[in-house]
């Protein structure tokens, strides 16, 4: 006999047939089916192989806690492993495969591991992968070789490597009340809070709102509970102040009532709608939260409790009532509590025969006995299941008389023929989110469960989450919590009518039946009760250590069904009560979260990028772009067939011979305005700016408070109270924050405003012997001769009808000008300059040529101002004013910062005429076999067209004192060794005659 679809019943859409495959076999199901319910309806009992022993496994549960039935879903080239079949809604074309089996699920060669149980016990990995400490294999790679195969044999599904084309999104939400869980408690909370006018978000991880009301078979307000759910949901849907989020797992509870949730938007569809994301990550800031997350039923631990066909009692009830699937025909129930009796009765009503109810308690209540009678079941009180039989499906079990106080078994074992064993070990409230929110759970001896702690954040619990397991309590608590969460003071609407059903919420304190055979505690990680005891015998007494050693509760289900039984077994071994052994604090995520949803729109071409005003021109004119931080800048404008080096050598050479133009729009630009602007700059820069005349620019250096160099750039005085500061591209944001900090925190009395105007201006630097002629040819409204525009002078004029600001300053070492105009006119002015330059042989050049020319000139950039160098190290001490204090002046002369052995900026010339590498070490003597004795390193290098040599800038101990001496590069990673000459960092035109003209 096997599971089957019932003829009637369930909340599935029987008119709708859905086709899917599992392990290549075609099946059909109905609308509303999960993969689990649809396969079960098709008689499938074997869903997977276990983690270590490759034991056959079936469905334990019907929900998110499922530890056994993990499958891989294939979508095109993309495979997503380890998804519980219970959480997959089937759709036409769904392709799912089982995991951890070879060659097939039914015939798995590694099932032989079951025979080697002793070897694969707790701590197997720790013991095994230490490798032999003595003997012939000591220190060999043999163990690493073996590990490969052992690791392959144990495990879960494998991840794919294909690029995931799905769309993921992030969504921010604000609400007064977030309700987590949509069972009777959550629904009542949402409804009551919404009635108070609160903005409400109601999230549930299942596709169908209603929780247990969908399958409990109870009656609310005179109608089946599921109908009451439908009615209530429809009312909520119609309200403007309510957002319903089905298929949404609230998985993290963070500070300030910020919660994280994952909405599975289109996993249940064959094709997402256009633009629809696969997953949406919700960041929800809630005024208060109602936690109505329910409870998980616990399995009992006994030999063979993992055989396919052994299922949690409520899960079987859910399959029958919600999905119209009977998990078996001849059912036995094994329980330590009252709740499961109703599950047995539900299966009976759905058409199964209830053969027996095995209750560990010596004398179940009269009500329960009556229920057993109603179910037509033989009631075996004071009994326990001690073994199960069957292969890929359950065929029978053995029961024995059991003394729940002493834990002993007695009498002969009796065999019962069955194909489905329902188990119930009591209920554990789903307190994960409350625990994440920061408080410690409290053990309740009656419920034999950890109950939620006192809130440390703004949440209120309701229903089974609080240990109130009856629907009557859930409705009342839901309503009260919704009212309180909304800050309401009035009386809520009358509660729906509900007739209480008898039943004791407290289970018997029985977690394990000790008998011969493997009794599983953690199904997903194959941890047995004996493993827990072994860990204890080996000295692991802390529950945290126990978890790590046995890996109990550390699988993808995070121990939802195994934590409490594991803890109970550990407590028994220690001879301590459970609360003294402690529980582990739950951490996010509550359930696995797709990485894609966390990356969201930062993925692929949606990463933010910064483009200069001339970006499209560069692309259209052959530039190879280079990403510098978020900016994109031309690296080279290569001609066809040119290498990068050929291109930049050509560009740099042409610039020095005639003229070149480069886009410098990325330079940080900050407007410094106000009556105290000049005084402020005097404090910020090491050199003087209050003496700078209007219409002139000056090169400035900033230090950090600790005396190290921070940033450099030119600052232009546009007016008495109006400066334009430029910073390096990379440091623009940091410099801005630095200035804002000092103005806001340290010197609030200074009347200065700073504004980022980086994006206001397009900038082009044009340099070379012909640069001035080119400007003269296209600039109107001003002269550009030496008298009108001296070195560091600024003029205003027009190019092609557009106002421009021109400053004569040079980074390349040539006679050079920076031309600024409004960014929206950037391309227009750039094109005019390029056009005007044509007769003069003007080239456009990129970052490579820019870098080459700056190395030839020995200018510093971020590679040298690396946070570890001082002004003196960089030979910029001439900029340190002695006439005034400035940021860093008090700390820059500390002993360590003026020591003789500091690394100083020098130039290097490769004497072997081969390229140098950035980051390579400099040594006095080469020792290729044992590289040592670094005296510094290379910060930047290039082939210098001006010198015809491979050159570099470096930071080297002793610095100037070594000029003219020989040293060696030692770069073992790239196997580059060779002699260099240490020279001044000013390789080219050290007197600056070219620049000054």
């Amino acid at each position, binding site marked *: 006999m096997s599971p089957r679809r019932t003829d009637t019943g369930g909340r599935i859409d029987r008119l709708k047939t859905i086709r899917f495959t599992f392990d290549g076999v075609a099946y059909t199901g109905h609308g509303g089916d999960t993969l689990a319910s649809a396969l079960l309806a098709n008689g499938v009992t074997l869903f997977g192989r276990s983690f270590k022993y490759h034991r056959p496994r079936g469905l334990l549960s019907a929900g998110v806690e499922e530890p056994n039935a993990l499958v891989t879903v294939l979508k095109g080239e993309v495979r997503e492993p380890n998804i519980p079949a219970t959480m997959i809604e089937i759709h036409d074309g769904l392709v799912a495969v089982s995991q951890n089996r070879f060659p097939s699920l039914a015939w798995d060669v590694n099932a032989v591991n079951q025979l080697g149980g002793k070897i694969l016990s707790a701590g197997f990995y720790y013991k095994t992968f230490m490798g032999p400490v003595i003997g012939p294999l000591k220190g060999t790679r043999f163990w690493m070789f073996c590990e490969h195969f052992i690791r392959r044999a144990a495990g879960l599904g494998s991840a794919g490597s294909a690029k995931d084309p799905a769309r993921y*999104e*992030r*969504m*921010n*939400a*604000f609400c007064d009340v977030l309700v987590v869980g949509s069972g009777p408690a959550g629904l009542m909370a949402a409804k009551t809070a919404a009635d108070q006018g609160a*903005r409400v978000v109601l999230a549930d991880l299942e596709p169908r709102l209603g929780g247990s009301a969908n399958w409990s078979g109870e009656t609310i307000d005179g109608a089946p509970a599921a109908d009451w759910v439908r009615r209530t949901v429809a009312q909520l849907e119609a309200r403007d102040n309510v957002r319903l989020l089905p298929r949404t797992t609230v998985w993290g509870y963070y500070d300030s009532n910020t919660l994280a949730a994952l909405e599975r938007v289109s996993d249940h569809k064959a094709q997402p*709608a*256009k*633009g*629809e*994301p696969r997953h949406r990550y919700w*960041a929800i*800031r809630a005024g208060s939260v109602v936690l109505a997350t329910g409870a998980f039923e616990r399995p009992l631990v006994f030999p063979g409790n993992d055989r396919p066909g052994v299922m949690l009692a409520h899960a079987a009830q859910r399959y029958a009532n919600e999905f119209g699937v009977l998990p078996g025909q001849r059912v036995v129930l094994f329980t330590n509590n009252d709740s499961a009796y109703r599950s047995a009765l539900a299966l009976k009503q759905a058409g199964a025969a209830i053969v027996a109810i095995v209750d560990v308690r010596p004398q179940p209540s009269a009500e329960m006995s009556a229920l057993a009678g109603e179910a037509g079941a033989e009631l075996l009180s004071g009994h326990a299941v001690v073994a199960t039989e069957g292969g890929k499906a359950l065929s029978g079990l053995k029961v024995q008389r059991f003394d729940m106080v002493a834990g002993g078994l007695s009498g002969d074992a009796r065999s019962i023929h069955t194909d489905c064993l329902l188990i119930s070990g009591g209920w554990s409230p789903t307190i994960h989110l409350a625990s994440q929110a920061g408080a410690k759970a409290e053990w309740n001896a009656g419920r034999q469960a950890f109950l939620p702690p006192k809130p440390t954040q703004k949440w209120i619990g309701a229903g089974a989450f609080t240990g109130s397991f009856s629907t009557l309590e859930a409705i009342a608590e839901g309503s009260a919590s919704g009212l309180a969460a909304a800050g309401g003071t009035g009386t809520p609407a009358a509660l729906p009518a509900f007739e209480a059903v008898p039943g004791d919420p407290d289970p018997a304190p029985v977690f394990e039946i000790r008998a011969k055979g493997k009794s599983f505690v953690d199904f997903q990680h194959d941890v047995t009760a004996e493993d827990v005891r072994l860990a204890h015998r080996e000295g692991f007494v802390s529950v945290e250590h126990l978890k790590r050693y046995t890996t109990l509760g550390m699988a993808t289900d995070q121990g939802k069904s195994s934590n409490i039984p594991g803890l109970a077994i550990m407590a028994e071994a220690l001879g301590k009560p459970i609360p003294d052994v402690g529980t582990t604090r739950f951490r996010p995520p509550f359930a696995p979260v797709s990485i894609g949803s966390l990356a969201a*729109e*930062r993925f692929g*071409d*949606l*990463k*933010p*990028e*910064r*483009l*200069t*005003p001339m970006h*499209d021109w560069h692309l259209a004119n052959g530039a190879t772009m280079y990403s510098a931080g*978020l*900016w994109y800048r031309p690296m080279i404008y290569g001609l066809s067939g040119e290498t990068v080096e050929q291109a930049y050598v050509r560009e740099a050479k042409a610039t020095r011979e005639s003229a070149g133009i480069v886009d410098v*729009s990325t330079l940080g630009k900050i*407007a410094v*305005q*106000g*009556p105290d602007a000049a005084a402020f700059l005097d404090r910020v820069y090491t050199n003087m700016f209050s003496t700078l005349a209007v219409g002139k620019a000056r090169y400035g250096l900033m230090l950090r408070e600790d005396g190290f160099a921070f940033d450099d750039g030119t600052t232009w005085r546009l007016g008495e*109270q109006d400066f334009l500061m430029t910073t390096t591209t990379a440091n623009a944001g940091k410099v801005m924050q630095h200035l804002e900090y000092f103005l806001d925190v340290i010197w609030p009395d200074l*009347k200065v*405003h700073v*504004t*980022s*105007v*980086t*994006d*206001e*201006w*397009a900038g082009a630097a044009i340099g070379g012997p012909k640069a001035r002629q080119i400007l003269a040819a296209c600039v109107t409204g001003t002269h550009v001769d030496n008298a009108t525009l001296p070195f560091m002078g600024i003029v205003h004029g027009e190019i*092609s*009808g*557009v106002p421009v600001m021109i400053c004569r300053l040079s980074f390349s070492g040539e006679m050079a000008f920076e031309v600024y105009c*409004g*960014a*929206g*006119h*950037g*391309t*227009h002015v750039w094109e005019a300059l390029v056009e005007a330059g044509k007769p003069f042989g003007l080239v456009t050049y990129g970052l490579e040529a820019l870098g080459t020319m700056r190395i030839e000139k020995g200018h510093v950039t971020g590679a040298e101002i690396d946070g570890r160098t001082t002004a003196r190290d960089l030979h910029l001490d001439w900029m340190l004013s002695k006439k005034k204090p400035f940021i860093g002046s008090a700390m820059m002369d500390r002993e360590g910062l003026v020591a003789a052995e500091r690394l100083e900026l020098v130039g290097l010339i490769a004497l072997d005429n081969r390229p140098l590498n950035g980051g390579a070490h400099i040594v006095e003597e080469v020792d290729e076999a044992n590289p040592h004795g670094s005296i510094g390193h290379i910060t930047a290098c290039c082939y210098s067209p001006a010198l015809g040599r491979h050159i570099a800038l470096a930071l080297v101990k002793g610095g100037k004192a070594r000029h003219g001496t020989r040293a060696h590069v030692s770069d073992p990673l790239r196997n580059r060794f060779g002699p260099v000459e240490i020279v001044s960092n000013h390789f080219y035109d050290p007197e600056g005659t070219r620049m000054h003209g």
Partner: protein
Amino acid sequence: MAERQSPLEPEFHVGSHGNFEHGVEILLTETRPGSIVQLAAWPGEEKKLMEAIRGVTGLALPDGAGGGLSDGVKSVFGFAPGKFTVTDEAEGLAAALAKAVTPAIGTVTDLSHGRTAIRIAGPKAEWVLSKFFAIDFALPAFPVGAGRSTAHHDVFAQIQRTGADQFDIHVFRSFARSFWKALCHASEEVGYEVQ
């Protein structure tokens, strides 16, 4: 003078896009104001600055953080303590304000080229913006006329609500195309039209 180039150009595709078969729920456009000017008052001079703004633009700023208003041609809103952004369809606003805002009151910074103004309108405007910004876009929390300073990762944004379901977003010009692409992408699921 040469026309100002939009940073969005190669990615600005007029027409309906995304899942628009059931109707567009988002309108996207670049408002291209002639002037975007930032004003900042010295502490204690805020009222005088607000008065100067009223004198030049005719817009009377309400008290309160982030307060603002728009007459459809000119707009103004506070985005930081003592600081305001003013826009005008016409060019030349910075020069006019520079006359009214004396150095004793505060400073005037012309950002007409440096900021790009993108307008998002339609019934799903709040929904789409919520994908980017962790601020509450609901009308009671963000009234018409008001301004907000916020950021989407590295992209700073000043947002003014210029209608019940209309927002003007000012972003740095260099980020504008990237942000525009992301905005279009995020609007696909509800259908959008670029105007």
